[in-house]
Structure formats: C-alpha cells, structure tokens
C-alpha cells in the first residue's frame, strides 16, 4: 500500500510497483544501449544531467577544454516483471571522466553486467575493476562482432584475469533472447550466492 510508506502523504493513489535495477556497464561504445534496447519493453529513454566544469577534476578536462559545461547522458530501459515489480536497466555513462556517477548508480543495484566488445576488451577493464573493488556481483557478457565470437569464453576470462566465480557469457547484444540470457545468468549468480 502506497499509503503506508514513510514518504507517502495524501491518499487515493493507485498502487505503485516495487522497483529494482541492474546496471549495464562497459567501455564507451561497447553496445550498452543496444543491450538495454533489445530487452526493454520501451524504447530506451535518455536522461541528461548538466555538469559544470567545476565538478570535474583538472585531469578530466582533456578534450573538453572548449566547453564551460557538459552533460552526462544515461540510457535506460524497463522490464515489467509483474504488477508489483518492475526491473530497470541502466546503461552507465561510458566515458571514463563520468565514472563518479557510477557510484550513485550502483547504490541499490541488484548487480551488473559488464559488456565487452570482443574487438577491444581492454575498453571494459576499468568496469571490471569498478565492480570487483566494490564487491558488486557482476557477469561479463562478451558482445560479438556482427554476432561472431572468435574467442572462447575461457580466453576472455584469462585475458581479464577474472576469478572462476564470475560467469562469462558470449552474447549478441542486438538480440533480445541473447540479452535476456545474460540477465538470467546474472540472476542465477545472485540466487546461488543467496542460497549459500
């Protein structure tokens, strides 16, 4: 009941669903928005947050010297699990200089998918580090090039120096079933940890 919430004031509102979120992370241009869009029931939405230059460290200004202000864009999608439960998928901002936003995004997330472009896995190294350091559960999803996967999952695991308990899933972020299976792999990981 919405009326029993600490925050609720007033009455006569339809029941609001519980909400949860999963982050889709990875380097710039690895296909995060593509993955969000392929499983979301809505066309991915975008929010843009204005940032003042004062909010950024000096070292982070490379490439944006001409700008007084910039915006961080975040794309997200939605999956309605039931009348009472809605899952949101947030694509994290890919550019490294916006990573401070990840901390806010990560709070209260069920877990994360680190998406890797099979042609340049190094662009997602930092994302792997981010979730490992914060002990946020994640799976690694290797997005093929045009759906093709030249390397087996174990080679990717080795190149990322991933612990054995982090699942590595080969995927095609353009395909709904493939992206869904990545999310299911994350939920299976979370459920296994919860049962332990």
């Amino acid at each position, binding site marked *: 009941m*919405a*009326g029993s*919430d*600490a*925050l*609720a*004031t*007033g*009455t*006569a*509102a*339809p*029941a*609001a*669903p*519980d*909400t*949860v*979120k999963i982050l889709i992370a990875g380097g710039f241009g690895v296909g995060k928005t593509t993955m969000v869009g392929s*499983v979301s029931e809505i066309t991915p*939405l*975008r*929010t*843009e*947050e*204005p940032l003042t230059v004062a909010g950024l460290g000096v070292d982070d200004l490379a490439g944006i010297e001409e700008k007084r*202000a910039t*915006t961080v864009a*975040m794309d*997200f999608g*939605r*999956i*309605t*699990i*039931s009348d009472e*439960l*809605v*899952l*949101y998928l*947030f694509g994290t901002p890919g550019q490294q200089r916006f990573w401070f936003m990840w901390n806010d*995004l990560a*709070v*209260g*997330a*069920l877990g994360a998918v680190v998406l890797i472009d099979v042609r340049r896995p190094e662009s997602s190294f930092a994302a792997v580090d981010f979730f490992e350091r914060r*002990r*946020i*559960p994640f799976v690694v999803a290797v997005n093929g090039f045009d759906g093709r996967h030249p390397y087996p999952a174990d080679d990717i695991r080795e190149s990322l120096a991933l612990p054995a308990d982090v699942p590595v899933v080969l995927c095609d972020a353009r395909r*709904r*079933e493939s992206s*869904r299976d990545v*999310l*299911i792999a994350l*939920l*299976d990981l*979370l*459920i296994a*940890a*919860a*049962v332990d």
Partner: protein
Amino acid sequence: MTDSDAAGRLVRPFALTGGRTRPSRADFTLITTVTAVDPPPEGSPRPQAEQSRILRRCARPVAVAELAALLDLPVSVVVIMLCDLLEAGLITAHPPRPVSPRTPDLDLLQKVREGLGRL
C-alpha cells in the same frame, strides 16, 4: 536540446524552490516511483505550470528517471520539483525495493528470474 534551451529551463524550476524546508532530495532515487494524488488534497496550492506537467505525467505511477526523460529535464531539476509536490501533498513517493548484497532477498531474486524467463 540546445544550450540556451537548457539554461532557460534550469532557471524556472530552481526559482520555484525558494528556500522552504522540504523533503530531502535523497528521498528520490532514479527508480523511486511517484504518483499524483487524485483528487488533490483540499486547500493545496494551485500547481505552477511545470508542476502541472509533472502531475499529468504521473497520473499513474512512474519512476523518477522516466519522468525526467519524458519531460526532457535533468533528473536533479525534476527531483527538486518533486520535493515541493510531495511537501504539498500532491504526489506520493514509493521508494525502490531495498537491496543489500549482505542480506540477499531470495524471494525477490527468484521473482525477477522468473519474470526474465517469461520474456
């Protein structure tokens, strides 16, 4: 959205907040769900134009991030306006399901897993 457009938009919502005590911005996460109270409580102030836009968009429950995207406004601006609306009793806010890695909610996880399996 052009820069001048963004600047023009920023002025009005921030000007509306005028130093009153109000619910904390921390009450509104990206996936906090807000719903307009219908009918509005008796004696509540007439909503301003931007507030009316928000109220129309949340006649049914909608997450803060969705609201910001639909209104084409930054989340930070929408949250300040939502604080005012909550204080005025014109909306209700439903916090996200709490998630703690240390005390996982198996029932919740299984529900999400089953929902994904149905996709």
